[in-house]
C-alpha cells in the first residue's frame, strides 16, 4: 500500500491532506456537472438541498412571524397560504426526502460495502438532474406567483377551486419523484450486487440496512404519488371526474392515493436518519450496536408495516369504522420497531466508553425529540383521540418533532460526523457543540407550545386565530428565532472549516466503518484494491489490531 492511503492513524497532529483525492481529481465546473463519481454527486446534492433548506426555512420564518399576532396583519391570506404551501413542498420533497439518502447515502453507501461506485453511476447523475429540474419547476411556480394548495394537494380544492400554479408545482413533484425512484433503485441494486468479498448482509453497517429499507419504500411508494399527480393533472385539465362526486368519482380517492405514498414517505425521511444515529452512537461509545439484528430488522419491519397505515390520516373522513379499526391497530404495530430502536441505542451506551463530540450531542437530541415525536404519534393513531387532535397544531408539532427534531437532528449529526471524511477537515468543536445545544433549546421552545395550542383546538394552516392562543404562539415564534440561529451557525463554521479547519486525517473518531479506513477525502476510486471483509460491523477489537499493525508498519518505515 502506498503512503497516501495510510497516514499515521491515531495522531492527528501529523495528519496531512492527501495530494490526490476525489475533490481535486479533475478541475472545472464541467468536471462536476458531468461527473459520475458518487462522492461528487453526493456533494452536488449537499449543496442543492442546503440551498432549498434555506428557502424552506425562510418560509417557515415568515409563517412564524405572521403568527406572532392573532390578526392577519403581515400579509394577505392568499400570500400566507402560499407561504405554508411552499414551506411544505420545499422541505418535504426537496429537502427531507433526499436529505440523508442522496447526500450521505450517495457518498457513503458504496464505500461502506467496499464498492468503487453505485451500480449505475450515470443514472445517479440523472437523479441529481431530475432533482434539480424538480427544484427549478418549484422555483418557477414560486416566481410566477406561487401556489396555495397546501403540500397535500387535496382535491377538489386543487383541481377546481384554485387558479394558482398547481400544474407547475405538480410537475415539479412528479419529476423530483423520479429522482428518488432512481436513487432507491440504484441503492437496492448496489447493496445486492456490489458488496465486497466477505461483506455479508449481516456484516453491513446499520446505515446500509436503513438505506436499503428506505430505498424499498422509494421504489414501491413513489410511483403511486406519480399516478396521483397525473390523475390530479387530468382532472384539472380535462375534468375526467375520477375525484368528482358529480361525475361518479370519489373525492376521497385522491387522499387514499396521496397518503399511500406520503405515509411511507415519512419513513423514507426518517429511516436513513436512524441509520446515521446507529453509526454515531456506536462510534462515540466505542461499542458495537446493541442487538444488531433487532435494529436491522426493525428497519425492514418499519418499511413493511409503513405501507399499511395510510388511512390513519383519514379517521374523521367517514371511512368505515371497521377499516378505521384495522388501520389504527396497524399504526400501533408500526410504532413498536421504533421503540425497539430507541432502547437498543440507549443500551448501546451501557458499558461503553463514551465521549461527547458534536455528532453525539446531535444524536442525543435525536433520541430525546424522536421519543417525544414517536409517542405523540400514538395519540394520533388512537382513534378517538385522533378525532380531537387531527388537523390541529398537535399534528404540526408531532410531525415536526419526528421530521425536524428527528430527521434534521440526524442529518446534522451525520454531516458533522462525516464532515472530516467528506472534506478532509475538522470544524471548530466548541462552536459546533454550541450550535447543537442552541438547536435543541430552540426546537423545544418552538414546538412544545404547539402541542398545547393544538389540544386547545387551534387548526393548522390558520392565518388568523383567536386571541387566547397568542401567548403560546409568541413562545413558538421566539423558539423559531433561536432555532434559526442554530441552523445558521453550522453553515458559517462548516464553510469556514473548508479552508481553515484542522486536517482531519483518515479516522479522527476511531470508527470501525470501511469509510474510515481510507484516506479523507477519499480517492475517486475509493479503494486502491478491493477490500476483503473478515469482520463484522462495529468490531472495535479488529480496529485495535489493525491500528497496532499499522503503527508497526509506520515505525518500520520511519
Amino acid at each position: 500500500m502506498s503512503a497516501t492511503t495510510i497516514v499515521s492513524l491515531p495522531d492527528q497532529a501529523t495528519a496531512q491532506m492527501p495530494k490526490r483525492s476525489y475533490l481535486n481529481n479533475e478541475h472545472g465546473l464541467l468536471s462536476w456537472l458531468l461527473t459520475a463519481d458518487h462522492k461528487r454527486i453526493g456533494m452536488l446534492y449537499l449543496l442543492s438541498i442546503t440551498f432549498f433548506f434555506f428557502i424552506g426555512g425562510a418560509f417557515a420564518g415568515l409563517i412564524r412571524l405572521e403568527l406572532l399576532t392573532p390578526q392577519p396583519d403581515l400579509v394577505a391570506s392568499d400570500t400566507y397560504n402560499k407561504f405554508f404551501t411552499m414551506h411544505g413542498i420545499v422541505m418535504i420533497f426537496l429537502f427531507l426526502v433526499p436529505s440523508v439518502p442522496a447526500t450521505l447515502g450517495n457518498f457513503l453507501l458504496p464505500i461502506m460495502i467496499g464498492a468503487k461506485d453505485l451500480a449505475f453511476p450515470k443514472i445517479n447523475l440523472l437523479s441529481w438532474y431530475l432533482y434539480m429540474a424538480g427544484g427549478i419547476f418549484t422555483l418557477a411556480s414560486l416566481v410566477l406567483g406561487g401556489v396555495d394548495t397546501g403540500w397535500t394537494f387535496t382535491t377538489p380544492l386543487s383541481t377546481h377551486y384554485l387558479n394558482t400554479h398547481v400544474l407547475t408545482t405538480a410537475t415539479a413533484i412528479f419529476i423530483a419523484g423520479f429522482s428518488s425512484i432512481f436513487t432507491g433503485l440504484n441503492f437496492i441494486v448496489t447493496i445486492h450486487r456490489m458488496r465486497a468479498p466477505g461483506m455479508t448482509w449481516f456484516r453491513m453497517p446499520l446505515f446500509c440496512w436503513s438505506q436499503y429499507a428506505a430505498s424499498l419504500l422509494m421504489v414501491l411508494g413513489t410511483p403511486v404519488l406519480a399516478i396521483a399527480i397525473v390523475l390530479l393533472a387530468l382532472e384539472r385539465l380535462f375534468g375526467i371526474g375520477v375525484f368528482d362526486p358529480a361525475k361518479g368519482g370519489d373525492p376521497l380517492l385522491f387522499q387514499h392515493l396521496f397518503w399511500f405514498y406520503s405515509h411511507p414517505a415519512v419513513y423514507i425521511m426518517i429511516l436513513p436518519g436512524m441509520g446515521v444515529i446507529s453509526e454515531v452512537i456506536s462510534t462515540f461509545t466505542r461499542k458495537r450496536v446493541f442487538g444488531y439484528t433487532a435494529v436491522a430488522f426493525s428497519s425492514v419491519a418499519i418499511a413493511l408495516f409503513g405501507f399499511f397505515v395510510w388511512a390513519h390520516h383519514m379517521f374523521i373522513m367517514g371511512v368505515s369504522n371497521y377499516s378505521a379499526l384495522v388501520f389504527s391497530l396497524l399504526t400501533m404495530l408500526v410504532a413498536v420497531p421504533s421503540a425497539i430502536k430507541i432502547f437498543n441505542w440507549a443500551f448501546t451506551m451501557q458499558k461503553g466508553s463514551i465521549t461527547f463530540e458534536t455528532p453525539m450531542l446531535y444524536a442525543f437530541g435525536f433520541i430525546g425529540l424522536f421519543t417525544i415525536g414517536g409517542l405523540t404519534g400514538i395519540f394520533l393513531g388512537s382513534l378517538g383521540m385522533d378525532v380531537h387532535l387531527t388537523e390541529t397544531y398537535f399534528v404540526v408539532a408531532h410531525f415536526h418533532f419526528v421530521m425536524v427534531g428527528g430527521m434534521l437532528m440526524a442529518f446534522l449529526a451525520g454531516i458533522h460526523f462525516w464532515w472530516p471524511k467528506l472534506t478532509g477537515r475538522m470544524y471548530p468543536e466548541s462552536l459546533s457543540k454550541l450550535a447543537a445545544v442552541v438547536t435543541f433549546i430552540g426546537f423545544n421552545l418552538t414546538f412544545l407550545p404547539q402541542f398545547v395550542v393544538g389540544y386547545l383546538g387551534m387548526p393548522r394552516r390558520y392565518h388568523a386565530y383567536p386571541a387566547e392562543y397568542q401567548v403560546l404562539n409568541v413562545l413558538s415564534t421566539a423558539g423559531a428565532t433561536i432555532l434559526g440561529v442554530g441552523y445558521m451557525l453550522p453553515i458559517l463554521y462548516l464553510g469556514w472549516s473548508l479552508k481553515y479547519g484542522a486536517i482531519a486525517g483518515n479516522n479522527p473518531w476511531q470508527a470501525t466503518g470501511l469509510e474510515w479506513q481510507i484516506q479523507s477525502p477519499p480517492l475517486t476510486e475509493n479503494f486502491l484494491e478491493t477490500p476483503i471483509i473478515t469482520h463484522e460491523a462495529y468490531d472495535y477489537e479488529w480496529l485495535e489490531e489493525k491500528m497496532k499493525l499499522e503503527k508497526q508498519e509506520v515505525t518500520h518505515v520511519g
Partner: protein
Amino acid sequence: MGISPVLWQFLVNWLHSSALFPTEASTIAPYTDALYFFLIGMTIFGVVLVGALVTVFSLKYRREKHPVAVQIEGSTLLEATWTIIPLAIFLVTFVWGALLYFRIYNPPANSMNIYVVGKQWMWKAEHPGGQHEINALHIPIGQPVQLTMISQDVFHSFSIPDFRVKREVIPGRYTTVWFQATQTGKFHIFCTQYCGTLHSGMIGEVTAMTPADYQKWLSESTSGMSLAQNGERLFASLGCIQCHSGNAASRGPNLAGVYGSKLTLTNGQQVTVNDAYLRDAILNPSEHVTAGFSPIMPTYQGQVSEDGLIDLVEYIKNMQSNYRVHQTLMTSDSDKAAPTTPTTGTTQER
C-alpha cells in the same frame, strides 16, 4: 422595577386571557381528556425512562470513568422486554381509542338533527323548523344533537374543540357527528381542513342554551317555513309527485314511511333508507332502483342545491302518509293544460 405600570397591566391581562386547556363542555369531553391524560402519562414515562437511561449511562460510562468499552452482543430477553411492553401499552391505547371513537361517532337514537352545509367560507346551519343561521349554531344543553353535514364545494371539517368533536365535511356525501353540551356558553367552531383563501375565516360560534332558552330562540328566529314544507314545494315543482304519488299503479315507489325501512334494490343489495341514501337516490337514481320498479327516474344532479336536497330529504323523512301528495295532485289536475303526462318530457328537458 423599571417596567411601566401600563405595560405591566397589559402583560398581566394578556397572560390572564390566554388559555392552556380547553373547556370540557360536552359529555364526550371528559372521556377524551381521560385518554389524553393517560397518553401524556405514557409519554412522560417513556421520555423519563429513555432520558434516565441515556443520562445514567453517560455519567457512568463516560471515557474518564470507563476507558475501555466492554463489547456486548445483545440480549434476547431485553429485546423481548422492550418489544412486548410497548406493544402491550400501545394495544391498550388502541382499544381505549377505539371505544372512544365509537362513542364519538355513534349518535344516541333520541338525538335531534340539525343540518349543516359548508361552503367557501361559511357554515350554514338549518334547523328542521326552518331556522337558518350562518357561522353560528344554537343548541340546547342536556340533549344529544346530531349534525348531518355536507359540503357544497371542497373538503371542510367541522370542529368544536370544547366539545372534542370533529368531522370532515365532504362534497357529495353526508357525514354526521353528534354531541351533548353540558354547559351554557359560547364555543368556537373551526373549519380544520384547509379549504382555500379564507380558511381561517371559516369560523363560527356555538351557543349552548338551556332548553327553555333554545325554544324561545327557535320561535323568535323562524323563517315561517320548516325544511319539510320547503321540501314539499320542491317535491311538487320538480315533478317528483307524478311518479311518487303513492298510488298502487304509480311508476315510482311509495315514499310514505320509507325512511328508516329496509329496501331491496334491483341489483339484490339490501339497504337501510337514511338521509345519505335518499340524497344519493335523488342524484343518482339509476344505481338505487327499488326492486320491482324500472330505472326510469332521471338524475337531478346539478338541478337541486344542497339546501334543496336537505329540504327534500327532510320532507320524505317526515312523510307518514300520502294524504297531502294526493291533495296536491288533485289541485294540479284541476288546472292542467295538457292532457298528456308531462313527467318524462319535462324531466328530459331539464
